[in-house]
C-alpha cells in the first residue's frame, strides 16, 4: 500500500540519520530524491506521510524498552520536518501553509490517540516531537540561518522565522490543558521550553508577546477553573508550583514582559493566588534602581523615576466596550450624568462564580472595572506630561473624581473591585504608582464618603494588607502606600473600628 511504501522511506530516513551527521550531504540527497520521486508530491501524500511517520514514531516509543533509546524515530521525524522546511522550493506553496498542514495532521493524530486511549494516553512522544522540532530549528536558524548557503533561500528563511514560532504558539494554544488535560504537564513544559519561551520573549518588535500572553492566560484559566477553596486536587497544586517557577524565571530574565502585560495577566489570575499576583506586579524593568521602600524618610513625590509612565502593551481602552465614550467624555468635561452612566454600567448581566477571599460570586464586570481604572491612570499620567502635575494631583480633577464617583455610587462589591484595581497599579516607582498612591491616600482620608467612610477605609486597608502579609515579594508601591497610611496624622489606623474588632489584624498593624 501507499502507506507501507511511505513507512519504508521513513524507516530508511531514520537509519540514515543514525549513520551520518545531520549536516552530511547524503541527508540533503535523500530529501532531494524523496521530492524527485514524488513521495510528497501532493497534499494527500504529505498528509499520509506525516500520519504514517508520526504513528510509527509513537508506536516505536510505546514498544521500546524504556531504558533504551525510545525517541529515535520521533527525533528523526523532527529532523525530516525541518529539512523539508529548509530544503524544498516554496515557489508554489508557501512555507507557512506547508508547516501548518503538517502540524494539523500531527494534531489530528494526537487527538485521535488521546481520545482513544484516554487515561492511558502517553504525552511523552508528542512532547519529544515538539521539543526536538524546537531544538532542530534553533540549530539551523542560528545566526540568521548562516548555515544555509543559498542566499535567496536564506533570506526567505529569515523572513519565515518568526512565523515558525507563531505557528507553534497557535497550535500550543489549541493543545491547552482545558482542552487536553492528558497533555497538561507536557504543555506547561513546552510553553516554558528553553528553545521556545526565551525566543518568543525576544522576537523583534515584541512579535511573540500577544501569543505568550494568550498561552499564560490559558494556563491561568485552567488553574482558576480547578482551584476550589475547599480542596485543590493534588495535580492542580503541582501545576501551580510549576507555573510559579516559570513566572519567577520570566521575572528574572524578562521582567519587562510582566511589567507591560500585567493588566491582561491579572485579568485571569485568580484572587487566591496572592503570591503569584505579587510576583507579576513586583516585576520592574532591568535598569531601574528602586529606592528602599522601608526608608521612613522616603517620600514618593521626591522619587525622580516617578516621572516615567510604565509601558502598557495592550491598551485597556479596547476593553471599555460601551463605556469608552462616556469615560473619555467625562475625563474631558465631567458631568453627573456621565458619571451615573459609568457607575450603572459596571455590572454583569448574571452572577459568575469566583473563588475570592471572602466571596464566592461576582456581579460586577471585574475586567471592565480593571480597564476603566487603568485607562484613567494612563490618561492621568499623559495629562501630567502634557500640562502639569497639579492638573491630576488634584481631588477636583476629572481623573480623580471619576474614580471617586465609582466609590460613592457603588455597592460594597464595586468599591472592593475598584480599590483592588487601583492597588494593581501600585507597582515599582513610576507615574502610575505615584498617581494611584495619591488617589488612594486621599480616598482614605476623604470626608466625602459620609457614613460610608469606614467601609471604604476598611476595603483599602484590607486590600493593602492582604498583599503585605503574604510571603515576599511585595510591591514597592503597596509598601510605600501602606507606610503612608501608617504614618498618617489625620487618621490612626489603630483607632479604626474594624482594626480594633479583630485582634489578629490589630496585632499586625501594631507590629507594622
Amino acid at each position, binding site marked *: 500500500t501507499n502507506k507501507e511504501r511511505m513507512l519504508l522511506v521513513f524507516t530508511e530516513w531514520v537509519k540514515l540519520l543514525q549513520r551520518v551527521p545531520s549536516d552530511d550531504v547524503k541527508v540533503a540527497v535523500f530529501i532531494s530524491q524523496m521530492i524527485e520521486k514524488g513521495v510528497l508530491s501532493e497534499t494527500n501524500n504529505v498528509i499520509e506521510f506525516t500520519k504514517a511517520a508520526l504513528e510509527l514514531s509513537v508506536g516505536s516509543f510505546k514498544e521500546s524498552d524504556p531504558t533504551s533509546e525510545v525517541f529515535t524515530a520521533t527525533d528523526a521525524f523532527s529532523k525530516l520536518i525541518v529539512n523539508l522546511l529548509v530544503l524544498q522550493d516554496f515557489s508554489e506553496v508557501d512555507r507557512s501553509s506547508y508547516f501548518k498542514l503538517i502540524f494539523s495532521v500531527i494534531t489530528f493524530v494526537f487527538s485521535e490517540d488521546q481520545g482513544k486511549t484516554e487515561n492511558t494516553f502517553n504525552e511523552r512522544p508528542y512532547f519529544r516531537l515538539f521539543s526536538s522540532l524546537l*531544538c532542530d530549528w*534553533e*540549530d539551523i536558524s*542560528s*545566526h540568521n540561518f*548562516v548555515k544555509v548557503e543559498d542566499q535567496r533561500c536564506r533570506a526567505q528563511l529569515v523572513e519565515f522565522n518568526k512565523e515558525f514560532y507563531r505557528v507553534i504558539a497557535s497550535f500550543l494554544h489549541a493543545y491547552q490543558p482545558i482542552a487536553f488535560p492528558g497533555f497538561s504537564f507536557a504543555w*506547561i*513544559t513546552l510553553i*516554558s*521550553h*528553553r*528553545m521556545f*519561551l*526565551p525566543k518568543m*520573549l525576544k522576537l523583534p518588535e515584541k512579535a511573540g508577546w500577544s501569543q505568550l500572553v494568550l498561552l499564560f492566560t490559558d494556563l491561568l484559566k485552567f488553574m482558576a477553573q480547578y482551584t476550589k477553596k475547599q480542596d485543590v486536587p493534588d495535580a492542580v497544586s*503541582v501545576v501551580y*508550583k*510549576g*507555573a*510559579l*517557577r*516559570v513566572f*519567577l*524565571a*520570566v*521575572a*528574572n*530574565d*524578562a*521582567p519587562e514582559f510582566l511589567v507591560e502585560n500585567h493588566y491582561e495577566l491579572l485579568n485571569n489570575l485568580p484572587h487566591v493566588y*496572592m*503570591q*503569584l499576583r*505579587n510576583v507579576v506586579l513586583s516585576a520592574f524593568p*532591568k535598569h531601574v534602581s528602586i529606592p528602599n521602600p522601608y526608608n521612613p524618610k522616603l517620600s514618593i513625590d521626591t522619587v525622580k523615576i516617578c516621572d516615567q509612565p510604565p509601558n502598557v502593551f495592550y491598551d485597556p481602552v479596547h476593553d471599555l466596550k460601551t463605556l469608552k465614550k462616556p469615560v473619555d467624555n467625562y475625563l474631558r468635561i465631567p458631568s453627573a450624568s456621565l458619571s451615573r452612566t459609568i457607575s450603572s454600567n459596571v455590572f454583569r448581566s448574571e452572577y459568575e462564580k469566583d473563588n475570592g477571599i471572602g466571596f464566592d460570586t461576582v456581579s460586577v464586570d471585574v475586567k471592565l472595572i480593571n480597564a476603566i481604572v487603568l485607562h484613567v491612570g494612563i490618561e492621568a499620567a499623559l495629562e501630567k506630561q502634557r500640562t502639569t502635575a497639579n492638573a491630576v494631583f488634584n481631588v477636583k480633577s476629572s481623573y480623580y473624581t471619576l474614580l471617586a464617583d465609582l466609590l460613592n455610587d457603588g455597592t460594597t462589591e464595586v468599591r472592593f473591585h475598584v480599590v483592588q484595581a487601583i492597588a494593581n497599579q501600585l507597582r515599582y516607582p513610576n507615574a502610575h504608582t505615584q498617581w494611584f498612591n495619591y488617589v488612594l491616600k486621599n480616598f482614605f482620608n476623604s470626608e466625602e464618603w459620609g457614613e460610608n467612610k469606614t467601609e471604604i477605609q476598611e476595603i483599602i486597608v484590607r486590600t493593602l494588607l492582604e498583599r503585605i*502579609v*503574604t*510571603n*515576599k*515579594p511585595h510591591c514597592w508601591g503597596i509598601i510605600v502606600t501602606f507606610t503612608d497610611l501608617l504614618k498618617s496624622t489625620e487618621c490612626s489606623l489603630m483607632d479604626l473600628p474594624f482594626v480594633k474588632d479583630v485582634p489578629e489584624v490589630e496585632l499586625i498593624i501594631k507590629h507594622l
Partner: protein
Amino acid sequence: LGIDLSPVLHSLGIPNNQPSRNRVLDTFQSPWVETSRSEVEPKFFVPE
C-alpha cells in the same frame, strides 16, 4: 499566604533573591525541580 521563595529561586539558579544577570530560561530544564535533575543542552553556535 504563599511560601518562602528562596529555595525556589535557588533551584532556578537565582541567588540571593535578586534578579541575576544570568538568564535562566535559556538553560531551563523543566518547570518542576523533580524533573530537572539533569542539565539540558542550551543553544550554541559553532562557526564554519
